């Protein structure tokens, strides 16, 4: 009775943890880019008696987990990435809610950058960089709530920071900006650029350049596929058309320094409808291990000897049968202990690079559905900032596209240059066909990556160096799988 009472007392607060649904919401609402992760403020209640609580943000095939310190309080607030999709769910304890999705869908568009604006004065920010039907689409945040994890910025093309008062950005923001830029994002800073921490180990940007936009000089640092533009706050404020200055800077990056938008659709982190997966490899051939031979021999011996020995011991035949049943059950149980062949995890990667040392990668991963269907990532793990999303694939398999910031690779071949839809003398389609036929350095799995990327991007205004045979500095592994690399290419963006 005493134990029962204790369990009831301990169990009561555990069962009570829940969401305050009225106050939980997407911070980007009403905007949201379907197929990306967006910042969601979670209000937790009923945390009495708990030290920590785990919030899970689940979407098709993916779960992101974050530990929240309750510290004896009854309520806590945390911002976690939530997938902008019907499949999105939030879970704490046994409580699961379906977040209300943003109502305005933001599509990738070269002319209209989806922008997160952080400012000490959001009203001023709305005046300088308004969200207009023909310009940028903006979500406005206070500067002191700058995200310390790039995964909260996943849906955005650009980040704008207004910091006239020399305010230090919160801890983690330097790494978040570096991650975001390495993935192709652009960060515009008006004013001070001070971080709340030092000694963060991120690669240095490329040498700065000094572009001028409508009479306002900027300092541009190329950072892999992305870039950082810095303006003096006073110069921007004194400019008669500050919002056009910022718009030009955004276009300068998104249009690859050309004076008009490239054709086609800009690259985004939305999962592709058709992923560049090569044809799946057959399953690993199973082979009997010594345990199999040992158990099979033991089974034959038992079946041959047990009736004979039982016949010597007793005249009752039933005893022999019973002994045999027990021995066979034991050997069958031993058979269950044999190691199964591991599912094959096939990984392909496109490394995105640009200016300077930084680069990022998008890993395309597929595995047999015997492995499971939920890829779990801890948002508290400082060693990795990977962000997966589920990708459609043929039945019987699971696939994800995983964005990995700040990675580097080693080129394994001579780069080919894409300009005006031509790769050297060949049109991009002929070049891809040649790759599939083994006629150039993009053999095997790399041909699928090359073909897919060219089909998506080889439009007017896109130039790139394509390098085959990349190897990443850090591999990818899932528990209980056998990893096979199918190929990787490096795409280095060329500005006009």
């Amino acid at each position, binding site marked *: 009775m005493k134990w029962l009472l204790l369990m009831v007392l301990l169990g009561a607060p555990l069962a009570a943890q829940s969401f305050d649904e009225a106050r939980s919401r997407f911070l980007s609402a009403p905007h949201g880019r379907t197929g990306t992760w967006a910042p969601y403020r979670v209000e937790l209640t009923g945390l009495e008696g708990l030290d920590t609580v785990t919030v899970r943000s689940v979407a098709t095939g993916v779960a992101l987990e974050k530990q929240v310190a309750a510290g004896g309080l009854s309520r806590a607030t945390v911002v976690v990435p939530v997938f902008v999709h019907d499949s999105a769910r939030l879970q704490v304890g046994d409580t699961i809610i379906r977040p209300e999705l943003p109502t305005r869908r933001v599509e990738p568009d070269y002319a209209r950058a989806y922008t997160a604006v952080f400012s000490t004065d959001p009203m001023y920010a709305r005046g300088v960089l308004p969200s207009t039907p023909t310009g940028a689409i903006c979500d406005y945040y206070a500067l002191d709530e700058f995200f310390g994890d790039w995964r909260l910025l996943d849906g955005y093309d650009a980040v704008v920071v207004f910091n006239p008062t020399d305010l230090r950005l919160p801890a983690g923001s330097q790494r978040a900006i570096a991650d975001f830029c390495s993935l192709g994002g652009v960060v515009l800073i008006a004013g001070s650029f001070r971080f709340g921490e030092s000694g963060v180990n991120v690669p240095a940007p490329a040498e700065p350049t000094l572009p001028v936009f409508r009479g306002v000089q900027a300092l541009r640092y190329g950072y892999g596929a992305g870039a950082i533009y810095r303006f003096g706050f006073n110069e921007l404020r004194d400019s008669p058309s500050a919002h056009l200055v910022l718009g030009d800077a955004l276009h300068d990056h998104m249009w690859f320094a050309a004076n008009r938008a490239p054709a086609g659709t800009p690259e985004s982190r939305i999962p592709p409808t058709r992923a560049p997966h090569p044809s799946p490899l057959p*399953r690993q051939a*199973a082979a009997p291990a010594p345990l199999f031979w040992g158990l099979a021999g033991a*089974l034959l011996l038992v*079946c041959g000897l047990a009736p004979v020995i039982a016949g010597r011991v007793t005249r009752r035949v039933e005893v022999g*049968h019973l002994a045999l049943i027990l021995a066979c059950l034991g*050997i*069958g149980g031993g058979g269950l202990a044999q190691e199964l062949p591991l599912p094959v995890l096939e990984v392909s990667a496109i490394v995105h690079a640009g200016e300077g040392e930084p680069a990022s990668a998008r890993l395309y991963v597929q595995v047999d559905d*015997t492995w499971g269907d939920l890829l779990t990532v801890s948002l508290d793990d400082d060693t990795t900032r990977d962000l997966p999303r589920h990708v459609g694939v043929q039945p019987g398999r699971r696939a994800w596209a995983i964005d990995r910031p700040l990675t580097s690779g080693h080129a394994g071949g001579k780069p080919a240059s894409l300009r005006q839809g031509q790769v050297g003398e060949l049109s991009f389609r002929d070049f891809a066909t040649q790759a599939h036929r083994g006629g150039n350095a993009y053999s095997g799995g790399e041909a699928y990556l090359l073909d897919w990327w060219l089909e998506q991007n080889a439009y007017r205004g896109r130039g790139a160096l394509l390098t085959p045979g990349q190897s990443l500095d850090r591999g990818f592994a899932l528990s209980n799988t056998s990893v096979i690399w199918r190929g990787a290419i490096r795409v280095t963006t060329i500005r006009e």
Partner: protein
Amino acid sequence: MSNSQLPTGAWETVTQNSQIIDAALRRPEIMKFNALLVVSVLLALGGLFALPGVRQAAGLGLDGSWQLAVIHAELALAPLLYLPVVGERRSALNNLLGGASCWAAGGAVVLLFGFAGGAGWSTRALSACVWLAVSGVLAMGARRDAAMVQRGRVLLLALLALPALWHYLLLEYAGATGAHLRAISPNWGLATNQPALWPLLLIGTLCWVGAFALPTRRTT
């Protein structure tokens, strides 16, 4: 050809052979190595399925399909591999335990092939029902004589193994479906992931009740 048309002495030879078989099947020793027979046959078939030529012809791989082929063999061969002792009521318990030991031995072989992956564990209930029905039918026949055991084998093969053929013949010649026969065919049920246990359980239980309840036949 009727019995009267047999050559001189042939009928006597047939009768003598039947009596020899009947006498052999009445010895409890014949069931002694029944489990060994099951294990040997299934292991040999498992090895056969690993041969490249056989594998290619059967559309198998060195994966879960390997174990599945062994499971199909186990289910299909149960009516042929089970050897009940012909005799009085007291042999029925021996037959029941013999059937259980065959099921356990066959199950051990199937689980040994689990190194290739597959669904061996989840088919054990179906396998138990098949062995129950097979041993029940044959043990009930064994209460009478060896000929009834052989008739029982033919009946079981027609009942458990041939419904897919009946279905095909019905479709071909009568334009009707025999898909409902899937419920009594374990191999068909396994192939379509819709195995039905209750018909086999019913047949097995009724036959075992019959095997224990039938009065012993007195012969001179």
